[in-house]
């Protein structure tokens, strides 16, 4: 059990290791950036094509007004959810192993949320008038309708983006101060500005701790509200299949599920590409795997509970959407069942699998395939009507390109940011050195930790 105690590293060693992603740039980084950038570029070109040809380019039609752009929006908002959740909840529970993971998951949130925010703008049709949605006095006498869940959603996304950037940046300040001492030239100037003159005095640390206490507790209801309102985008309508009071918690769980999968993917990629094998240990994969396993059960509970009560009640209007799910979209349903239930359940139950990083990468990818498919079954079958046989909607090259472009944009942002910030929080990692230790007891050594004072 105690096989993977962290090797004691000196402060200088930790600083060197964790700033290496900033100080050294190889060709591979440029290649990856270029790859993601060109995929994103292709998506942007297709977006220009969409502006020229109108929203019809997506193949959206009368019953299916919402298709791939909204599916993408829900998906990326979901991915964004878990980054901050993992970081905030682990801080709240004083889990010692959070220290290596907080930064990369918070960065995940910031990038994914930026991607999610693009899609509503992309989907409004006349994209150049997006500022009509903002609330400001104007000669058009137009005002946003605050009764609409879509506006709640826009508000929630802005709030979550602002607060998660604050959360992310607050943790970065002490690390920027370390980078200030470790870089030269324009970078040094940049970090001197970004660290705001941080010196690490007792005064500063005390405030930072209290600030984290407040942020950690209060950001949890913010991210819950974000995906709740995404759920209400659907739940507030009276379309059977969408009009369900369980949609809000169901969406939150789904978001946590895909987000935790994304955390696994990010962990693996960061660990491999920046050689952080001493910092991101198999135990981290193990623990995130356990979290993912319990979330998968919770998600399954809501997923099944939602479909189940409609199915059992035999209410004709409710059976309609299930009919589409079981017929036209049965392959999508099969993807959910295989990648969202069969694969994770059979793999995550084994400690050996959870401790093997590349297998956990596969689990992360599998969960995300399933959750993308789940978004498809949420968005499309409910408004479908018996007009065509396959279902009412088939994705075309425009939608698929934009979907790929989203992945490109996310990868591009994350790769770019990883060049400017320590991807593992340096001060949090080194804080662990003071808080953890070994104690000789009887015939063995046992890990002991300092009990942290409660937050709040």
């Amino acid at each position: 059990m105690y096989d993977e105690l962290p090797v004691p590293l000196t402060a200088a060693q930790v600083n060197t290791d964790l700033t290496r992603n900033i100080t050294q740039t190889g060709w591979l980084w440029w290649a990856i950036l270029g790859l993601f950038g060109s995929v994103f570029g292709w998506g942007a070109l297709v977006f220009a094509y969409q502006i020229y040809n109108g929203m019809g380019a997506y193949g959206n039609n009368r019953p299916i007004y919402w298709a791939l752009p909204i599916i993408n929006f829900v998906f990326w908002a979901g991915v964004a959810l878990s980054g901050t959740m993992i970081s905030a909840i682990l801080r709240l529970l004083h889990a010692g192993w959070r220290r290596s993971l907080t930064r990369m998951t918070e960065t995940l949130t910031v990038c994914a949320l930026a991607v999610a925010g693009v899609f509503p703008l992309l989907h409004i049709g006349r994209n150049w008038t997006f500022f009509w949605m903002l609330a400001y006095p104007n000669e058009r006498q137009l005002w946003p309708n605050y009764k609409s869940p879509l506006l709640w959603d826009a508000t929630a996304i802005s709030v979550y983006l602002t607060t998660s950037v604050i959360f992310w940046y607050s943790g970065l300040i002490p690390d920027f101060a370390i980078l200030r001492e470790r870089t030269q030239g324009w970078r040094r100037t940049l970090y001197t500005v970004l660290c705001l003159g941080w010196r690490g005095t007792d005064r500063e640390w005390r405030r930072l701790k209290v600030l984290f206490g407040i942020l950690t507790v209060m950001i949890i209801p913010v991210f819950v509200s974000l995906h709740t309102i995404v759920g209400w985008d659907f739940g507030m309508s009276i379309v059977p299949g969408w009009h369900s009071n369980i949609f809000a918690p169901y969406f939150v769980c789904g978001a946590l599920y895909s987000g935790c999968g994304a955390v696994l993917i990010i962990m693996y990629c960061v660990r491999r590409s920046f050689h952080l094998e001493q910092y991101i240990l198999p135990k981290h994969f193990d623990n995130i795997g356990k979290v993912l396993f319990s979330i998968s059960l919770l998600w399954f509970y809501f997923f099944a509970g939602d479909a189940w009560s409609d199915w059992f009640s035999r209410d004709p209007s409710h059976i309609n959407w299930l009919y589409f799910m079981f017929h036209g979209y049965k392959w999508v349903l099969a993807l959910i069942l295989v990648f969202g239930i069969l694969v994770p359940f059979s793999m995550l139950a084994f400690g050996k699998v959870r401790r093997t990083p590349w297998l956990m990468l596969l689990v992360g990818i599998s969960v995300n395939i399933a959750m993308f498919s789940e978004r498809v079954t949420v968005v499309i079958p409910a408004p479908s009507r018996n007009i065509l046989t396959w279902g009412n909607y088939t994705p075309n090259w425009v939608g698929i390109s934009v979907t790929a472009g989203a992945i490109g944009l996310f990868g591009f942002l994350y790769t770019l940011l990883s060049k400017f910030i320590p991807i593992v929080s340096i001060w949090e990692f080194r804080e662990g050195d003071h808080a953890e230790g070994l104690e000789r007891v009887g015939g063995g050594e046992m890990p002991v930790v300092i009990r942290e004072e409660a937050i709040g």
Partner: protein
Amino acid sequence: MFDNDNILTSPRSIALSVDASSPLQLVLDEPQQSRLTKLRLMTLICVGLVLAAGVAIYGYAYFGHHRNDPSFWHISLVSLLFWIGLSQGMVALSALLRITHASWRYPLNRLLDIGSLFGLWGPLLLPVLVITRRQIYALGSSDYRDNVWRLSGPIFWDALTIGTAFLAGWMLLYLTSLPDFAILRDRAGEGSKEKKFYTRLAWFWRGSEHQWRVLRRAEGVLVVGILTTFVGSQTVLGWDFQLAAARNWDSSIFAPLYTLSSLLGALALAVLLMTIANRILRGRGFFNSEHYNNLGRFMVAIGLVWFYFRFCDYLTAWYGHLPEEWLIQQSRTSTFPVLVLLMIIGCFGAPVFGNMIPAIRKQPWASCTISLLVLVGLAAQRYLDTVPTFAPRYGTQALLPTLPAIVVFFGIAAMFILTYLLAIRYIPIISWWGIGKSQTRIAQRKMGNTIVTVMVEDPPLWET
């Protein structure tokens, strides 16, 4: 880094400490005369209430002229579900604290685990109360008549899941009590009744390394089992109503809402039990402000989530404004404003805003007041979720709680209390070995200018 002296305290010093032994003495020693009188009186009252409830169910309703009284049957049914939910919630709470390695859990676990003993006799009432609710046909769900007795119907699942959840609770209670029974066996006077009794109960528990390993393993398995069966049983209890396809009952949010409500009620009961245990043990300091603090914060969290689910339920009906849905929501608030207020204060206002202030949640009496409000709120919720569904057919007057229904509610509550009164006669209310374990793993160390608390990191329960 922490190289002062050894972190482990020897078991000997724990065995000799008066504090750790006091729960054992409670079982072995005869209670004082004044306490004995009190206990007897309470037992008598509880037995009286249980008998009165029986009279109400059989005499008044079943063989009397009230077989078609939806109010009586449903209040009785939800009273039972309420207490089943609470007792399972307590075991689940205990399991949750174990699985999250809460370092303050040790004195609390046993108190919560005893709740599962309610399952030995409480659920026996369930078939009686379920069979009689014939008014459900009046809601127009003819399917229910066929479904109710089928193996794929909710009633059969009820028996299965409630039974499994309680079974897991009993096993956990018994296994984790084994080391305590063993020390009672060794401490009881030679040839006494107790000696015989605890020798039977403790079998050959010797505290060998193998036994401890197996115990820990079993604890891990049971804890996971308890959590899953708890969610399962509460969900199925929600489905009892949900699958009836009666308006408002078909809400898919009932299952998670009831799971949460049971947990909230369990937290409230934990606070109350803790306070009572502290009084019985005359200030041995097993439960201090840290426990009140932690449970209070836990209540804040669960109260918020409760509000979240309730609000989702309300908002979906409000926004959609589908007549049949909205009517139910509206009739609930307009017909039973007091109960709605009680529910919101009890389940949300008191536990969240009351417990948000550290000074209040650390105060035992304030914390107990909040807990009582929570129980009242949860009872009001059970009523509001089930009974107003009959309003269109029976009229509101027929749905108000009547005296017999109230007697049944308190009768079932008395069954619950009686369970505790009987159990604490034979089981130490605080686990002796748990206290020992907690004391061996925590030490004070000097660091810089302060003293910090150092703990041994527990490996997860399921990896031994």
